[in-house]
């Protein structure tokens, strides 16, 4: 069987034509997980019984001649920082091992209403802090393209499961690139929506002013279909944007004639792998060939985004993670008094990167340093946003690398600062709250996938999808499959 290689829209057609049942499709995915995930290690929890029940209910609807939604019966995976009622949600942390939320995230309820099939919860860097998925407290996930490489992170389990056909699509979260960078490393499509477009209710918080949930998918059409379901105003999220969310599939025209596209020079050159830069320039040339106007532009504050981000995000994290005190849920380590209990619980519950960021954030917020670090970073954040505002007066979208390199090798990522620098292409858009997506575009000299990033102004997801779809329809470089060897 090869149904697991197909996309949401291809599988939906097969379900409607009754060429495959949701039960068969789900069974095939569960068998692949059983056979292959011992090696790839993308899943923390496989919810096989639930998945089969959900699939059966879709088959009942189909047998009764009922209409089903486009995501109905399609097996998917959820990043393990999205709350699922009664199903273990760990954030890949010892702090939350065994935690079964009392409620589901809004995105999970929305997918449920569409009759989704949930295969399970997938691996991540602990509390979404990291870019390799090696910071998971449980195990590292492998890149399906090369087992010696990381899948990226923090949504590494989401990206690896989709790239290896262990899920048709997945949801992840992106605070500084955590959807786009793993999508790039694993050769799939990933989108970080505009801040506020997808409810964060039930997403376990890392940095609340930056976090955003989004899709990881096999093609651009699938990303649009998922966006149609997950976007929308939610009164349970006080930062949810009340906006007339469009039907994202109407953007999939294939036509980019007359679009103005900027190629920011700060995202190219020094620090960017030449193979990555070459593919970005090739994608820009292809868009020009298709009738878009591409020109180089400048976002001068880009280089200050990394230091600003690594003050703001840890500051917010140090506050958000204050809740893990051993009182109401999660790990508790006993001690003789209550402060001792807090300190011991946090010592044993958090891994080294989480502790490092809590320390950094607490330092940046502490009295005497607040103005010099945190407040200064917030002002620079405004300058970065103004850079984008000026650019989007002139351009409909920007094109850039998603990451400076292709997938990093495992076990060589001990220097935190070197890893933080790997986020330079993705974090500016989180600081500005604008949408951005990663589209696979060819391979590097070692046969590893390259990601091209498209960025737009707030709520310009349709423009990004339009450009990505045009590239997808006009080259063979965007639909990449790992050479998975025999049996895979």
């Amino acid at each position, binding site marked *: 069987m090869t149904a697991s290689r197909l996309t949401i829209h291809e599988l939906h057609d097969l379900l409607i034509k009754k060429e495959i049942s949701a039960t068969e499709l789900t069974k095939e995915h569960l068998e692949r997980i059983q056979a292959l995930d011992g090696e790839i290690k993308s899943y923390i929890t496989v919810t096989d019984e639930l998945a089969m029940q959900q699939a059966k209910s879709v088959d009942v609807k189909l047998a009764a001649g009922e209409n089903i939604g486009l995501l109905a019966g399609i097996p998917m995976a959820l990043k393990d920082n999205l709350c699922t009622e009664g199903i273990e949600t760990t954030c890949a942390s010892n702090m939350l091992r065994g*935690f*079964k939320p*009392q*409620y589901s995230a809004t995105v999970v309820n929305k997918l449920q209403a569409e009759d989704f099939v949930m295969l399970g919860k997938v691996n991540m860097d602990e509390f979404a802090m990291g870019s390799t998925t090696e910071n998971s407290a449980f195990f590292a996930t492998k890149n399906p393209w090369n087992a010696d490489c990381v899948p990226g992170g923090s949504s590494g389990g989401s990206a690896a499961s989709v790239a290896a056909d262990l899920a048709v699509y997945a949801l992840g979260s992106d605070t500084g690139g955590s959807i786009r960078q793993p999508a790039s490393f694993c050769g799939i499509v990933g989108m970080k929506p505009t*801040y*506020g477009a997808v409810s964060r209710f039930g997403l376990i918080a890392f940095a609340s*002013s930056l976090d955003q949930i989004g899709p990881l998918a096999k093609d651009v059409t699938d990303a649009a279909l998922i966006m149609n379901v997950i976007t929308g105003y939610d*009164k349970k999220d*006080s*930062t949810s944007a009340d906006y007339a969310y469009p039907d994202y599939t109407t953007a999939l025209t294939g036509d980019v004639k007359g679009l103005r596209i900027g190629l920011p020079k700060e995202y190219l050159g020094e620090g960017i792998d030449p193979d990555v830069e070459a593919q970005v320039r090739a994608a820009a040339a292809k868009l020009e060939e298709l009738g878009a106007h591409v020109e180089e532009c400048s976002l001068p*504050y880009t280089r*200050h985004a*990394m*230091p*600003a981000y*690594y*003050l703001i995000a840890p500051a917010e994290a*140090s506050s958000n993670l*204050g809740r893990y005190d*051993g*009182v*109401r*849920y*999660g*790990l508790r380590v006993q*001690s*003789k*008094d*209550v*402060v001792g*209990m*807090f*300190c*011991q619980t*946090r*010592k044993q519950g*958090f891994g*080294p990167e989480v*502790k*490092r960021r*809590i*320390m*950094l954030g*607490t*330092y940046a917020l*502490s009295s005497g340093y607040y103005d*010099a*670090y945190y407040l*200064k970073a*917030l*002002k*620079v*954040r*405004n*300058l970065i*946003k103004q850079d984008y505002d000026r650019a989007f007066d002139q351009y409909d979208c920007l094109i850039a690398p998603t990451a400076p390199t292709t997938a990093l090798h495992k076990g060589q990522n001990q220097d*935190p*600062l070197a890893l*933080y620098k790997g986020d330079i292409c993705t974090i500016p858009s989180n600081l500005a*709250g604008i949408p951005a997506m990663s589209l696979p575009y060819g391979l590097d000299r070692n046969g590893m996938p390259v990601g091209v990033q498209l960025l737009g102004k707030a709520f310009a997801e349709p423009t990004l999808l339009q450009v990505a779809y045009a590239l997808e329809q006009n080259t063979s470089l965007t639909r990449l499959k790992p050479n998975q060897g025999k049996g895979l």
Partner: protein
Amino acid sequence: MISKDVVEKVAKLSRLDLDEAEITLYAEQLSQILDTMAGLQQIDTEGVAPLAHVLPIENVLREDEVGECFTQEKVLANAPEQSEGMFQVPKIV
């Protein structure tokens, strides 16, 4: 340069119990990280407002009415320890 004393103070504020090796490591790593952030001080931000949030955020208000809520049992479902319908913690006073 972040001294070990500062690391210990920040760890205390963060309610993290660090061992000696961690204190040494974090002193070194936080110093390196904060060194790269020194460049921010050179940027002219005169007259630039701090941007804490990208959306024009307004306070969300609602009528003060009782809505759906969890049962006591459900609220306590993940409690490491509970007693008489409450979260139980070590003696505080």
